[in-house]
């Protein structure tokens, strides 16, 4: 008899809900879903309102005059808020597509995307993801547009360029998460070890990975600040990262602003030295992004949310310094980065040889904070405009909102029990502050530009 009683007690324990406030598990889930829907809804609307009326007093006055629900309804006509909100609220439902392909370029920027595979962050979300190594940025772009990849690792300006139709047909793309912050370097050939002042760099041939890259904009910015015109005084070449070290060895190029592990690899092979880390140009700059087409987001909202949770989870894990060594070992094999672990360790731990005989320590050499601030996108757009990649008037805030999904990232982070950062961020590039509210004035303020 006692055994039967025990059994009954246990069965009640299991059939009941997790929080104890509902009679059954089903009831608990229904209540949880309802409250989640409401939370996401208000959060999305709040953020959109904040963007429309940045000043608190104005927003409150506006809401008072018209009434909250009316405002939401009126806004919904212009912005597909309902659709995106719904997509994310459904994020906890059944996954539409379990087997996914995510493309990546073998550089340490892709760390969260790659490590999520061997360390099980994808399987934890119920996804069966194949991470596929790809030969270059143009190929990643084309394969993602062709739907061979469901999502991909892209340079953060790429989804903006694709959405605007620069270098391809305009296809709406989205960035729900940034892959990495900092983590690039300017590397020069050994023969230039005495030319540390960029003013001596006239006539240099410098390599960047892609035209629509933070590397291009940061290198141009750095050169221009030192009075070097990046179009007239030096030659900038797009070179795929793996070819950079080989070209540096062959003295075809004088240096490059490139992603790690390429920079550290040049040092490891004794062909170059690290001139500066990219964080010395802009500490906290975004580099690569996790991107997917809008079409994928709206047709597979649950899959997309699960994928995003895995990436955010992996980024949070990678952000902790104590995990970095383990990550370096996990992503070094041929299936992922195919690089010597000692090189990856130097990049990820920030204790590295600079190629000139010194050991340097900078734990923030690369960091992994996924939040896609709108101001990042606006800064990228100002540089596209500055260097003539886009002509005419640019809807800075509008494009930033459409492509960089800060609101959605915040919602998913909250859902996971993480605290999303404040939606604004101070940006200072080489001592010069950037105000995302005045992008045109920022572009105008530069002496060297192509507008």
């Amino acid at each position, binding site marked *: 008899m006692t055994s039967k009683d025990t059994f009954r007690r246990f069965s009640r324990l299991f059939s009941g809900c997790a929080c104890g406030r509902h009679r059954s598990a089903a009831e608990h889930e229904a209540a949880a879903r309802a409250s989640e829907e409401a939370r996401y809804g208000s959060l999305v609307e709040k953020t959109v309102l904040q963007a429309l009326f940045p000043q608190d007093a104005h927003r409150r006055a506006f809401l008072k005059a018209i009434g909250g629900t009316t405002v939401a309804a009126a806004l919904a006509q212009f912005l597909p808020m309902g659709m995106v909100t719904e997509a994310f609220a459904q994020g906890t439902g059944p996954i539409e597509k379990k087997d996914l392909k995510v493309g990546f370029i*073998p550089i340490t920027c892709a760390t969260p995307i790659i490590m999520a595979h061997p360390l099980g962050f994808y399987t934890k979300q119920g996804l069966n993801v*194949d*991470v*596929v*190594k*790809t*030969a*270059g940025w*143009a*190929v990643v772009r*084309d*394969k993602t*547009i*062709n*739907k*061979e990849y469901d999502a991909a690792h892209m340079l953060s300006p790429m989804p903006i360029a694709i959405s605007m139709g620069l270098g391809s047909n305009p296809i709406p793309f989205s960035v729900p998460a940034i892959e990495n912050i900092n983590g690039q370097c300017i590397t020069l050939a050994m023969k230039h070890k005495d030319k540390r002042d960029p003013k001596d760099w006239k006539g240099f041939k410098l390599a960047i990975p892609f035209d629509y890259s933070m590397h291009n904009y940061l290198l141009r910015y750095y050169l221009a600040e030192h009075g070097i015109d990046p179009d007239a005084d030096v030659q900038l070449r797009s070179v795929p990262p*793996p*070819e950079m*070290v*080989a070209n540096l*060895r062959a003295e075809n190029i004088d240096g490059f602003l490139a992603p790690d592990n390429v920079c550290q*690899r040049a*040092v*490891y*092979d*004794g062909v170059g030295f690290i001139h500066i880390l990219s964080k010395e140009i802009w500490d906290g700059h975004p580099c690569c992004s996790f991107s997917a087409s809008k079409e994928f987001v709206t047709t597979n909202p649950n899959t997309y949310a699960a994928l995003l949770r895995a990436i955010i989870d992996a980024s949070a894990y990678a952000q902790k310094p104590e995990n970095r060594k383990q990550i370096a070992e996990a992503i070094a*094999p*041929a*299936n*992922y980065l*195919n*690089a*010597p672990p*000692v090189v990856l360790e*130097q990049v990820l731990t920030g204790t*590295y*040889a600079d*190629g000139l*005989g*010194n*050991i340097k320590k900078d734990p923030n050499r690369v960091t992994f904070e996924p939040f896609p601030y709108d101001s990042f996108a606006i800064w990228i757009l100002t540089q596209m405009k500055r260097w003539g990649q886009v002509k005419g008037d640019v809807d800075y805030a509008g494009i930033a909102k459409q492509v960089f999904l800060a609101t959605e990232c915040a919602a998913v982070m909250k859902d996971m029990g993480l605290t999303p950062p404040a939606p604004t961020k101070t940006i200072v590039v080489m001592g010069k502050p950037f105000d995302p509210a005045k992008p045109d004035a920022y572009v105008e303020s530069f002496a060297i530009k192509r507008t």
Partner: protein
Amino acid sequence: MTSSLTLRAALVSVLLLAVFLLIWQGATAGFGAGGTGVPSGMDPEYAKLMGLTATTGKSALPSPVEVGAGLWNVLTDPFYDKGPNDKGVGLQLAYSLGRVLIGYGIAVLVAIPLGFLIGMSALMSKALDPFIQVLKPISPLAWMPLALYTIKDSGISAVFVIFICSVWPMLLNTAFGVASVRKEWLNVARTLEVGPFKRAFTVILPAAAPTILTGMRISIGIAWLVIVAAEMLVGGTGIGYFVWNEWNNLSITNVIIAILVIGVMGMLLDQMLAFVARLVTFPE
């Protein structure tokens, strides 16, 4: 006499190989002391973070002994599969061969009938000539972006590029072979009142077969050249991807191994067609 010539040629080949390997070994061993110790004046902590090339002056190019050891490793385990980006060389070769055979097969199906048409009709020959002359010299890498953009599938794009590059030599050789069938033979066929289809299959085809096979042999060589370039560009699988992946890792040893494997495979493909060509050759 011939047997002794073959013997002597083989001897010279082996000798040349030995001299080449010796020079290679000598050149790569010449760099630095080749020791593993830390050079004086360098912080041992710093040396630990650097590669051997930077610390001991070890040559960036591997020695033949290292390549031999690497080759043994690769060839003893050719069919492992450790995920989508790391497969054995045997599997990669199989992927490449599959793509080449599909692309090349389609090229054969298109080039030979079309070659017959061009060869048998002076009008078509003149009319199609400008197109062929323009399309023939285009590099596979130039086709790739267009193929990716329009076909929207990297695997099919690679097959398409093989097709478009290997079709021309076959087409031209078939047309030439068909056009230069001896007039007497055609006249005999005409006197015997042979129908056009029977004439094509029983007179022209056997007569033109050696020239057609020569075209096919040139084409398979081109197809094999193209697959490496195409796979380096689109990645994923195949021997070209293997080269790219090892280049990415700056592992010159594995790149040299891949070059050897590609060369041997290309030779085998060529020899197979050469064997078929010998079967259809006839004495004049």
